[in-house]
């Protein structure tokens, strides 16, 4: 796949369709991939990589990239195309300046899970469902399924919802179990749920990685960085504020979050932030009908639309709220 992508990118650079390529760059180890822009076949051949560790969603970079001179090629995985579409819908990406090549994805490996499974990783050879891992302390075989990123275990779609061309066959929207954990949280008592989130969010170090990586968080200036807002803070005045940051953010991206899972991938404290967003997605599905953000670029989103049969605020009480 990687070689096909390099060849295609080189061809599109050569015929002038694009003047640069947004992809993934090899790192120091097998897993530390960095998003990067390539401008020549030589650069692509020496540094471009596409493998099981290329988890980064490249869509958000296109906000800036599409404002530069010339057209940029971006390789997008199925779930990345949802983020891309949503950003098109929000008029954040200049579509004409982007050339999308859809690429297949059969799930990405979580480096956190990988490191938990094998200490001191030196090299990884993917052999179907088995990963042969060379470590500082010997060779170890790890099941690929066991170290798949959580968001990939419950993958919602292998279908590309936006592209100029595809490499390989397109996939289908999948039946996903992604709301299972949300259902579990809903089944808890309010006190249990409160305790669950207080515990999870207590680890937050307010690094803002979740916000900064989030394709839905594309404000020019975030309210939490704006001194004039009165709520700008780099650290919490009290521990409850840390919790509020995440809840406010979840509200802000509600109806726009495509469930790409980048927030949880980047959290240095492994807080399952995606669950907050999934709760909103599940609620929107239940209250306004099935809706997948980023599925198209035209439809009106439930929370920015009005229909006569929209649920009334009292639905909260009917669902057991007080």
């Amino acid at each position, binding site marked *: 796949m990687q070689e096909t992508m390099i060849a295609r990118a080189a061809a599109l650079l050569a015929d002038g369709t694009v003047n640069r390529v947004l992809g993934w760059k090899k790192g*120091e180890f097998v897993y530390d991939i960095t998003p*990067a822009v390539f401008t020549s076949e030589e650069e692509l051949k020496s540094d471009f990589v596409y493998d099981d560790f290329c988890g980064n969603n490249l869509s958000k970079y296109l906000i800036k990239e599409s404002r530069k001179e010339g057209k940029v090629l971006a390789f997008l995985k199925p779930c990345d195309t949802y983020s891309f579409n949503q950003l098109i819908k929000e008029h954040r990406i200049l579509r004409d300046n982007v050339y999308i090549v859809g690429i297949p994805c059969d799930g990405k490996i979580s480096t956190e899970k990988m490191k938990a499974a094998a200490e*001191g990783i*030196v090299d990884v050879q993917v052999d179907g469902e088995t990963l042969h891992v060379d470590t*500082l302390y010997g060779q170890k075989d790890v099941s690929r399924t066991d170290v798949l990123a959580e968001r990939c275990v419950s993958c919602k779609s292998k279908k590309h919802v936006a592209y100029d061309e595809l490499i390989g066959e397109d996939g289908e929207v999948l039946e996903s179990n992604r709301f299972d954990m949300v259902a579990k949280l809903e089944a808890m008592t309010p006190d249990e749920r409160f305790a669950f989130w207080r515990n999870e969010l207590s680890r937050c170090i307010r690094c803002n990685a979740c916000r900064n990586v989030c394709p839905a968080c594309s404000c020019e*200036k975030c309210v939490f*960085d704006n001194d004039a807002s009165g709520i700008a*803070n780099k*650290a919490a005045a009290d521990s409850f504020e840390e919790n509020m940051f995440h809840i406010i953010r979840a509200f802000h991206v509600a109806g726009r979050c495509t469930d790409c899972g980048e927030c949880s991938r980047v959290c*240095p404290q492994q807080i399952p932030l995606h669950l907050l967003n999934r709760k909103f997605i599940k609620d929107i599905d239940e209250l306004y009908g099935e809706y997948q953000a980023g599925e198209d670029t035209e439809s009106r989103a439930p929370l920015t639309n009005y229909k006569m049969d929209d649920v009334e605020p009292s639905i909260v009480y009917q669902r057991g709220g007080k």
Partner: protein
Amino acid sequence: MKKLSLSQLPALFAAIAEKETLYLPVDAEGGARFERFTEGKTLTGELNTVRSAKDFFFPQTENLAEFKMEGKNIEVIDPRTETEDFVVFGVRACDARSFSILDKVFLVDPVDTYYKNRREHGTIVSLACTRPHETCFCQTFGIDATDPEGDVTAWKTDDAIYFEAKTEKGDRLLANLSDLIEEADDTAVKEQKEAVKKVMDRLPLKSLTTEGFGGDVMMEKFNAPEWKSLSEACLGCGTCTFVCPTCQCYDIRDFNTGHGIKRFRCWDSCMYSDFTKMAHGNPRTSQLERFRQRFMHKLVYFPANNEGEFGCVGCGRCLAKCPISMNIVKVMRTLGGKKA
């Protein structure tokens, strides 16, 4: 050298905790972290904590002063209380070195009395590494992971834990534990050191050097064209700075309580858009400049002001945690070496 059977470790923790507050790294969701010892808590098997040990002396937030308004008077309150004595057990060599780097910032004139207060009351028991990770590169900065700095150094083997006091504070701590620990020779420790050094020799970052960095290459490094590609994908989050044991920049802010002001300081990050923001705006308006600042600080400005000492200890946390896997090692690989 002193020795304690591993089975006696809980008793040792209890004995320390009886006299002063004890913190140790324990397993937790999301990775190991330092927690206050209470009965039943055990030492993690993880190599290191997600957050560094700098919190003990330079916490993420702390109140510096309070202002109370009463009529036309403003009362200024110093909220500090004398810190109680505490012991931090199980600090790795990288973090142990980070304290002496932080000292160079906070204990020089004008001395930071908040930091000094904690530093004076803390006793560090460092723990030698036995299973370093691929992301470790403390060797690059001349740190010996098999014999870390600290008030007391500890070595954990399969069946025992060995101690050696390295400062007066360390002597006092071990003297208080004389009922539990016994004299021992250092054969087992020597064997461990040799075995671990063999692992250190085959670490993938063993070849990383500081060559080409330091206080005398300031403009050359500052103007290097490579910063553009290095910083291109940076998200501008603060993960690297907040997990870093040596990042020491902070902001001071006022919190309006409704009837007064709490002035607090909190960690700041040079990656943030409002870092060192002043009346005219921010001196670094692009992410390239902010990104460059972090690495110039560690690899050029800090050594320029501190007799060549670099502001990094090679703990590898930024390597493990950066959302886009851009880090000091990649910067050093790209910009290191002598340039024409």
